[in-house]
């Protein structure tokens, strides 16, 4: 499966619950360059609203997309965040 985004880095926080998806996303974003896209893979259902809320109120990040996929029976929430500098 291909994504429509040019993903620079992938962060796997599957199995981790609140607040780890958001906190780890922020830490990963801090290591990126302007324009880079971070893909976040989570199994925490709360990550949908958490990452959306974080992206809305944090300067320098843009939430491109959020998707729900099925990985061998496990529900995975994919988030695409761009660092806008």
């Amino acid at each position, binding site marked *: 499966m291909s994504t429509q985004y040019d993903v620079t880095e992938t962060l796997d926080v599957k*199995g*981790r*619950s*609140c*607040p*780890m998806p*958001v*906190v780890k*996303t*922020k*830490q990963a974003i801090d290591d990126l360059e302007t324009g880079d896209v971070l893909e976040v893979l989570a*199994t*925490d259902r709360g990550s949908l609203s958490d990452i959306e809320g*974080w992206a809305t*109120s*944090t*300067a320098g990040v843009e939430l491109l997309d959020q998707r729900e996929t099925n990985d061998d029976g496990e529900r995975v929430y994919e988030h695409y965040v761009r660092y806008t500098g």
Partner: protein
Amino acid sequence: MSTETSPPPEGDVATLQAEVEALREEVATLKDDAEDQGRKMTIIATKGSLDMAYPPLILASTAAAFDWDVTVFHTFWGLDILHEERSRNLKLSAVGNPSMGVPNLVAAVPGMDAVATRMMARRIEDNGTASVEELIQLALDQGAELQACQMTADLMDYEDDEFYDGVTTGVGAAAALADMGDADIQLLV
């Protein structure tokens, strides 16, 4: 009586214009400052049971991810969260906890707290929930200030080197108040 209003003397108009100009500049500066300043949150953490250690730590590490300025002032049992050894052994109390589903009389039986704590610890692990230690490191790494109240540290005989590295010690009520004074959010846990 004259119906004509005499124009104000030249000097006054110039003074007023200068004052208006000065005020405009001041407003612009204040606006810039207000926009530059991110939010600030101060939490007072007073409890040291396993369940009560989580809310301040989760909020602190998340707020730091929002680039907020975060201070957590730990006092009384809240100090146990910052105490390296004690933080690994925080307990859950079965007594007075209706969610445990056992009557207080049973909950008060010796050993019940240990059972309740073990149950919660297993759930924390199974659920992928961060440990207290992990959250403390995350909060500190992201620049949150975790303060240990000096008066209660003395009261409980905790030495500075018993707290995690990076914890701010020697802090009192005045420092906490000064922080709360210019915080947008103040919480007592």
